[in-house]
């Protein structure tokens, strides 16, 4: 449900930056821990883009996996051991449960491809 609001933001920011040029493609970087569903964002994107300079544009979502680093010894958690809930993840080196998130919460518009004005 909140993907609609997020996508409106996306379309508003890109429209503003496009300065009237038609936008053909947008690259969105999205961490897997943002509580957003890529499919829902894509669905909203096509609808929200209607009637804007983004109409018909392709949305490319670059997913960033969750990365955790141990606060005690600095070791990075093995990505294969990070489950959906990230529960029971402890540092393989020192067994600490204090893991700091290093990636997975990104939500950035990386770039857009625009058609130059005629």
């Amino acid at each position: 449900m909140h993907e609609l609001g997020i996508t409106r933001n996306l379309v508003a920011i890109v429209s503003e930056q496009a300065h009237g040029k038609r936008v053909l493609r947008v690259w969105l970087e999205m961490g897997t821990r943002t509580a957003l569903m890529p499919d829902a964002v894509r669905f909203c994107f096509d609808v929200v883009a209607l009637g804007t300079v983004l109409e018909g544009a392709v949305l490319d979502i670059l997913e960033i996996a969750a990365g955790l680093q141990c606060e005690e010894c600095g070791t990075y958690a093995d990505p294969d051991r990070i489950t959906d809930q990230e529960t029971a993840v402890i540092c393989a080196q020192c067994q600490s449960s204090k893991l700091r998130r290093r990636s997975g919460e990104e939500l950035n518009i990386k770039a857009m491809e625009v058609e130059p004005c005629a």
Partner: protein
Amino acid sequence: MCVTCGCGQNGATRIDGEALGAHEHEHVLADGTRVVHRHEHGNDAAHDEQMHIRALQHGHDIASMANAVFLPISGKSFEHTHAAEHGHAHTHTAVPPQERREIPTELVRLETALLDKNQRIATRNRIALAKRGVLALNLMSSPGAGKTSLLVRTLTDLAAEIPMSVVEGDQETSADAERIRATGARAVQINTGAGCHLEADMLERALHTLSPAEGSVLFIENVGNLVCPALFDLGEYARIVVLSVTEGDDKPLKYPHMFRSAQLMLLTKIDLLPYVSFDPARAEANAREVNPQIQCLRLSVTSGEGLANWYQQLRSLLQEVATESVA
């Protein structure tokens, strides 16, 4: 599986574990990064080949991935840049994409955080609240956990001691604000309509109406929802997640975003513990598993048990805010 290129499985939505849709799929890079993309199957030429190439060529660790920038440049090749500490050499074959556009296009780097606007307003709220020594608490829970009942009891019990006001977020009705006003406290109701959470600009507008007194407590009762309110900073001083014993003690594991984002968890309705299978110790252990720093309090609005600790917590937080606003 993608019928055109035969690769991958698709994205996030799964029903009973089954993935949906055939036109979007993901590639898992050697370093665990997943790339999800879509392509038009009516036209093979539109397939974004660059993503496949990227998937094949990379083997970076997660830490460098977090800072790396990957941008396919249409019509030519693809390039990417790495974070400064990225210390190894490698080459990327420039492969012309199969897709050729008839018009020249221009690539514009944006590097804009999508929630930037919300974040800016939240920061503005936080500064405005801090200046006045207002303790703003963002209360979040699933619907029916007892947020409003807790507030009504708190407002009644501490009315003579601490000035307090409330921002009520609900999709519809002003029922909750009326319950709050019945205690004599000031309240503003925000109806989000289709929205499932409060955003910083909503709080900003509410603050204009409410203008909370200096040195007061401002309770922000978010929309009953354990998912997206976690994503939106409002400018609060602290986040409180309310979990009632009539829910499951595994909720912190099921909704880790929410429990990870909160500083305090209140277990409510503990007078009902004899009648339910909820294990408060397990709930707290689960909360600490997703968020080792979270503080936990148990209370019952009906019996009054544990309320003294909650009130003490409020006083010490208010003291903290007062100290910071002087400094």
